[in-house]
């Protein structure tokens, strides 16, 4: 475990370098971009000074990195708030959305994968596999819009934007976005889960269990699912990066005020420091959660190395 933490350090450094480079090596003058074409040289100079871009690059980098442990991620000129204040306000929403989405995906995906695996090569399996092919190609923004059109506007069952206040309200507001996220992930989840389920179902210990005369239910819960869910957790962990990326699009479609949506508006309005800060947050988030999942996985499985059964 310690080894993993140590391994993460160069990556962290790399992340800071990249986010820094992202913004500071961009062609054009950030100050001018913010202030516009008509500004006088004095204004530009003063803005440049405010942004700190009149200092040499290494110094700017140091300033950037040293502020990080103190939680200073920069300042959003357009929104007139410090980045970390913005992040603190909006990150929870994004995390909530992603967790919600994963939950729905798992609730939908596990039964589908189970049905598909147990009825392998039969009509239902073919139908599910066929839908997966289609599902993989469905853009999340499109399905999100359709859900809005139908369930939000036409039926009026769910609100079409915002994230609500309070747990229940949030669950209601974020249902459609979470569903959209889940649907975009579902195809991959079911496909991988189906594969690992088939391997599990094939295992000798399942035969042993059947021959013991156990009820079907018991066989599934104690033998099949337990062994198939471990890879499912891994699948979710590996796709975390993708999920966070997809949440950016989903947040935009549904006008959810999470960090993804904020990132997009920041990019569109050339709010470089904000972009930098949020990109950094995303990367650190992925890193941290990956580590956490790794550790939990190791702790949960009875064996340090789980063999592929």
């Amino acid at each position, binding site marked *: 475990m310690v080894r993993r933490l140590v391994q993460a350090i160069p990556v962290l450094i790399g992340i800071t370098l990249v986010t820094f480079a992202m913004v500071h090596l961009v062609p054009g003058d950030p100050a001018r971009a913010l202030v516009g074409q008509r500004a006088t040289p004095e204004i530009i100079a003063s803005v440049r000074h405010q942004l700190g871009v009149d200092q040499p690059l290494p110094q700017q980098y140091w300033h950037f990195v040293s502020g990080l442990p103190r939680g200073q991620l920069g300042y959003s000129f357009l929104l007139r708030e410090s980045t970390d204040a913005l992040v603190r306000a909006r990150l929870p929403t994004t995390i909530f959305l992603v967790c919600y989405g994963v939950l729905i995906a798992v609730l939908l995906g596990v039964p589908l994968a189970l049905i598909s695996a147990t009825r*392998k090569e039969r009509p239902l399996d073919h139908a599910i596999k066929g839908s997966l092919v289609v599902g993989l190609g469905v853009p999340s923004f499109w399905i999100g819009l359709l859900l809005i059109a139908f369930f939000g506007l036409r039926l009026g069952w769910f609100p079409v934007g915002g994230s609500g206040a309070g747990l229940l309200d949030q669950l209601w507001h974020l249902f459609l976005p979470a569903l959209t996220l889940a649907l975009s992930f579902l195809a991959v989840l079911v496909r991988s889960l189906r594969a690992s389920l088939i391997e599990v179902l094939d295992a*000798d*210990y399942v*035969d042993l*269990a059947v021959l*013991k*005369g156990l009820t079907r239910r018991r066989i599934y819960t104690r033998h099949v699912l*337990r062994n198939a869910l471990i890879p499912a957790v891994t699948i979710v962990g590996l796709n975390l990066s993708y999920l966070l990326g997809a949440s950016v699009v989903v947040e935009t479609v549904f006008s959810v005020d999470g960090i993804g949506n904020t990132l997009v508006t920041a990019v569109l309005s050339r709010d470089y420091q904000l972009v930098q800060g949020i990109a950094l947050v995303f990367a650190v988030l992925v890193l941290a959660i990956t580590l956490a999942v790794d550790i939990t996985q190791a702790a949960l*499985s009875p064996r340090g190395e789980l*063999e592929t059964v």
Partner: protein
Amino acid sequence: MTAAADTGTRTAAEVALRIHGLQVVSQAGSREVPILRDIDLELRNGEIVGVVGESGSGKSTLCRAVARRLPSGLAVRGGSIRLRGLDVLAGKPERLHRLPQDGVRMIFQDPLKALNPVMTIGDQCIEAAMAGGTLSRPEALARSIDLLERMGIRNARSRMSDYPYQFSGGQRQRIVVSIALAGEPAVLLADEPTSALDVSTQAALLELIRQVCAERNTAVLFVSHNYAVVAQLCSRILVLYDGRTMELGPSEVLLSRSRHPYTAALIASLPSIDHRVTRLPAIPGQPPRGGEAAPGCPFHPRCRYAADACRTAPIELRDVGPAHQSACLRVDAIWPASRPGRSGRDDEGVEP
């Protein structure tokens, strides 16, 4: 030694398993490919019968057919399997599996795959013992510990909370055997249980199986590609090739007086302590890949005694001695009745 179930009802002479005319086919697409053809076999209580064959001969399929765990795509096309009178093939598989005792249990080749890696062995054993519905949990626990100790797992009680990965391969196989025997089966199907073990562990496991099954009068169908192992353990041997019985008879008889070229070749290729061999004879050619229901003897392309008739004539098992049958057409030609034995082995046939 406690054996809670009433094995006294199994008498030595009774027939435990009767397989008659079994046909298993593979339904690949629209074609049906025969996997097993006309298999006849009887097992009495307490008898250990071996089934020997190369990979692809159908020997594992035989076990699975009896256990009603054929993989999807395979189906029984004909014949019957009777377990102590019960028609195994009739009705749903659960009917067979839910028998509280005197049913069928199976042990497998790969000890790692045969145990659920995320369940303690204690849970798995207790599950097996309680499955019949006759024992309470504490009783099942006691019985499991008993069985494990009988199978040579020391400190069984404290090891009940361990996971499969904490045991060696040989130990895992013993656990698998105790799980199988917990159900007090009438027939134990052993599908290459020793193939993944080293020689000394193999020997120990075989001896254990022999003892424990003798105590309980459990019949054993022991399937393997390894003739030496089978010859060691089994009283009778069925030699399988391309899904068909080539020879069937008592194990010593087959060793000294086999009456089928395939069996003879198998035995000849076994290294022997008794006499030196400069080259290990191998059987030329490859086993058939299945997919053809070709007429004639399936072994004829590789048989040194093959004649024209072997290519086309239908294959039948005929008696060549007491409780000894062979499917070879040319038995009389290859092994004429009285021939002075030259080196104590009477299976050297006439040169082709």
